C-alpha cells in the first residue's frame, strides 16, 4: 500500500499538474541516477566513497523546487540528488563522479564535493556539519548586500551532535540571517540510530535557538514543497532563519562500503511501501493527471537521460597531469 499523499494547503501553494509532472520526472531521475551510479561503482568507474540518495528523493525535489533562482545551496556529501533537483547538468555530475575533465570541477571533487556556482549550488561538504556556519555567512552576506536571497542548508540527522550545528543556529538567529536549515532525518548516521545519538528532538533544539521549527513528512514531495515555500517566504520577509526536519529513509547502505549489519531487511521493506515516487504517481493518476502511458514516457525519458550521462562521462577524458597545480590560489579579478 502506498501512503496517502497530503492535500495542498492553499490554492496558491498548490502545484499544478505541470509542476507535479516535473516533480515526478525529477524524482524518477534521482532514483535512476543513483541506481546507475551504484552500478558504475561496482564496475569500478566511480571510486572512493559513494553515498546513494535512493529513498529520500521527495526531500530534494520538494525543497529545491521551492527555491528561487537567486537562492544559494550548501549541502552534505549525499549530494547528487540535491544537485540534480537544482537543475545541475546530469552529464557533468556523472563526469565528476567518473573523475573526468568535463565533471563539474574537472574531477577534483568527486561524489562528495559537487559544485555549480552558476546554479547557486555552492557545494557538497564531506565533513559533517562543516557547512552550517557557511550557510549563515551566505545569509549574512545577502542581508548586508540588501539582496533578497537566502541560503538553503541541507544536512543529515548526524549533524546535530556537532558543535558547529549549535554555533550556526545561534549565529543565524542572533543575526537574523535568511537561512533555511533543512535536516534530512533518515533515522541513521552511518549505523547509529538517531534515537541513540540525541537526548532530545531536533525541532526542540532549533526552537531553543528562537526560530520556527517544524517536523514534516519527508516522503511526501508536496508537503516538503509546501513547507519549504513557507520557509522561503519567512526568510524573504526578513524574519530570520527557519528550520525544517524532514523525516525520511534511505533504502541503500550509508555508502557502497556499508554491509548494513545494523538494520533489518524488513524495516527497509516497510519504508519501500511508503515510497515517495509511488505515492506521487498514485496521487496524479487518481486525479487524472497521469496515465500508464504517461508514466512509461517518464521512465523512458529518465532512462535516456541517465544513459546519456554515462555515455557523456565515459567519453570525457581524464584530466591532464599538468592541471595538478591549477586553481590552488585564486588570481585577482578585474574589478
Amino acid at each position, binding site marked *: 500500500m502506498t501512503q496517502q499523499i497530503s492535500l495542498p494547503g492553499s490554492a496558491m501553494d498548490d502545484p499544478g499538474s505541470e509542476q507535479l509532472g516535473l516533480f515526478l520526472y525529477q524524482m524518477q531521475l534521482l532514483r535512476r541516477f543513483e541506481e546507475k551510479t551504484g552500478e558504475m561503482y561496482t564496475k569500478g568507474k566511480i571510486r572512493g566513497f559513494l553515498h546513494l540518495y535512493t529513498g529520500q528523493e521527495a526531500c530534494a525535489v520538494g525543497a529545491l523546487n521551492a527555491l528561487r533562482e537567486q537562492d*544559494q545551496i*550548501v549541502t552534505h556529501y549525499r549530494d547528487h540528488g540535491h544537485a540534480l533537483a537544482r537543475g545541475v547538468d546530469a552529464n557533468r555530475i556523472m563526469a565528476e563522479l567518473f573523475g573526468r575533465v568535463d565533471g*563539474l*570541477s*574537472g574531477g*577534483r*571533487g568527486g561524489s562528495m*564535493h559537487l*559544485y*555549480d*556556482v552558476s546554479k547557486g549550488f*555552492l*557545494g557538497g*561538504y564531506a*565533513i559533517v556539519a*562543516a*557547512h*552550517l*556556519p*557557511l*550557510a*549563515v*555567512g*551566505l*545569509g*549574512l*552576506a*545577502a542581508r*548586508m*548586500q540588501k539582496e533578497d536571497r537566502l*541560503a538553503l542548508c541541507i544536512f543529515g540527522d548526524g549533524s546535530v551532535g556537532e*558543535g*558547529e550545528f549549535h*554555533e*550556526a543556529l*545561534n*549565529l543565524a538567529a*542572533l*543575526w537574523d540571517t535568511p537561512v533555511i536549515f533543512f535536516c534530512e532525518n533518515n533515522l541513521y548516521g552511518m549505523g547509529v540510530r538517531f534515537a541513540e545519538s540525541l537526548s532530545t528532538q531536533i525541532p526542540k533544539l532549533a526552537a531553543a535557538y528562537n526560530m520556527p521549527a517544524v517536523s514534516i513528512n519527508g516522503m511526501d514531495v508536496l508537503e516538503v514543497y509546501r513547507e519549504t515555500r513557507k520557509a522561503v517566504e519567512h526568510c524573504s520577509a526578513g524574519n530570520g532563519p527557519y528550520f525544517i526536519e524532514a523525516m525520511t529513509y534511505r533504502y541503500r547502505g550509508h555508502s557502497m562500503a556499508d554491509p548494513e549489519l545494523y538494520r533489518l531487511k524488513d524495516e527497509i521493506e516497510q519504508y519501500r511501501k511508503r515510497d515517495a515516487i509511488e505515492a506521487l504517481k498514485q496521487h496524479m493518476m487518481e486525479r487524472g493527471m497521469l496515465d500508464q502511458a504517461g508514466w512509461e514516457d517518464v521512465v523512458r525519458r529518465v532512462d535516456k537521460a541517465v544513459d546519456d550521462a554515462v555515455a557523456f562521462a565515459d567519453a570525457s577524458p581524464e584530466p591532464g597531469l599538468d592541471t595538478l597545480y*591549477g*586553481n*590552488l*590560489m*585564486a*588570481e*585577482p*579579478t578585474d574589478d
Partner: protein
Amino acid sequence: MTELRMRDALREALREEMIRDSRIFLLGEDIGAYGGSYAVTKGLLEEFGEERVKDTPIAESGIVGVGIGAAMAGLRPMVELMTINFSFLALEQIVNSAAKLHYMSNGQIRVPLVIRMASGGGSPLAATHSHSLEGLYAHFPGLNVVCPSNAADAKGLLKRAFRDENTTIFIEHTAIYGVKGEVPDDPDFVVEFGKANILRAGSDVTIVGYSGSVHQALRAATLLEQDGIEAEVIDLRTLRPLDMGTVIASVKKTNRAVIVEDDWKFGGFGGELSAQIMEQAFDWLDAPVARVSGKDVPMPYNRNLEFAALPSEEDVVEAVLAMM
C-alpha cells in the same frame, strides 16, 4: 611617515581598507565595545558602526565559517580570533573549507578572507595561551600565512591581505604590539606577499627569522658585531608564499645559516627552511644549518622557566659562534 606602534599601524590598515572597500567588515570576539583584546580594533565600532564591526559569541568555528560563507558570497570579511591558541577550534573550517574550496571547485569558488590572531609566549600565560603556530598554518596549501615583525610591515601586509582573493592567516606576535616604527602614510602602501626583507646586510652568517623572533636575530647580530662577525638578518615576512630565493642568495654569500623561531623545533617550520637550504645550497654550506627554537615542552608559567623555554639572542649568538 608617522611613528606608530604595531597595533596602531594595524588599526590604520583596517581603517584605510574599510574606507577604500565597502565590502570589508569585521567579525570577532570583543572587537567592538571592548576594542579588541590587544586594542587593535579600538574605535572602529564608533567609526564604522555595528554592521561592519560585529562582536560575536565565543564560537571560533562558527565565526570563521560565517566569514568563509560571506566571502563566498562576495564580501571581504575579516575574522579576529583573539589569539592563535583559540584557532584550534576553527582549524577544521580553515583547513577543509577556506584552504580548499577554490581548488576543489576548480576555480568556481573564492574565499577572500582575512583571519587575524595574536600569537607567542612571554606574557606569561603558560602552556594553553603561549603558542606560536605559524608553521602549522604554513603546512596547508591554499592559504597565505603572514607574520610581520614591525609596524610598517604589519600595515602594508594587512592592506595587501585585503586585496587578495584567498584566505590569509595573519599572525601578530603579542610581544611586539607596542614596538614603534616609521610607517608610510600613503593609503596605497602595501607590502607584497612572498618578499623577504634583508634587515641587516652581512657577509659571515645568515640569520633567518619571522614574526617576534626577528628581534632576537637583530639583537644577536648587534652582539656578534663585537666579536667581529657580520651577520645578515632576513625577515621572511610571509611563510606562504615563501621567498626562498632571498634566503638562498644570502646563504650562498655567507655560507652559514641559523634559523630562529619561537615555535617548537620538532616538526616545525625551521626544519622546512633547513631542508630547503640543504636542497638548494648544500655545496655552499661551511657548517650544518643551525636551528634556535622554543624548547620541546609545553610553555611553563614561571618566569625563569619560560625564559629558558624561549629562544634568546644569547642562544643565537652561541649557535653562530659554534659554527664559525
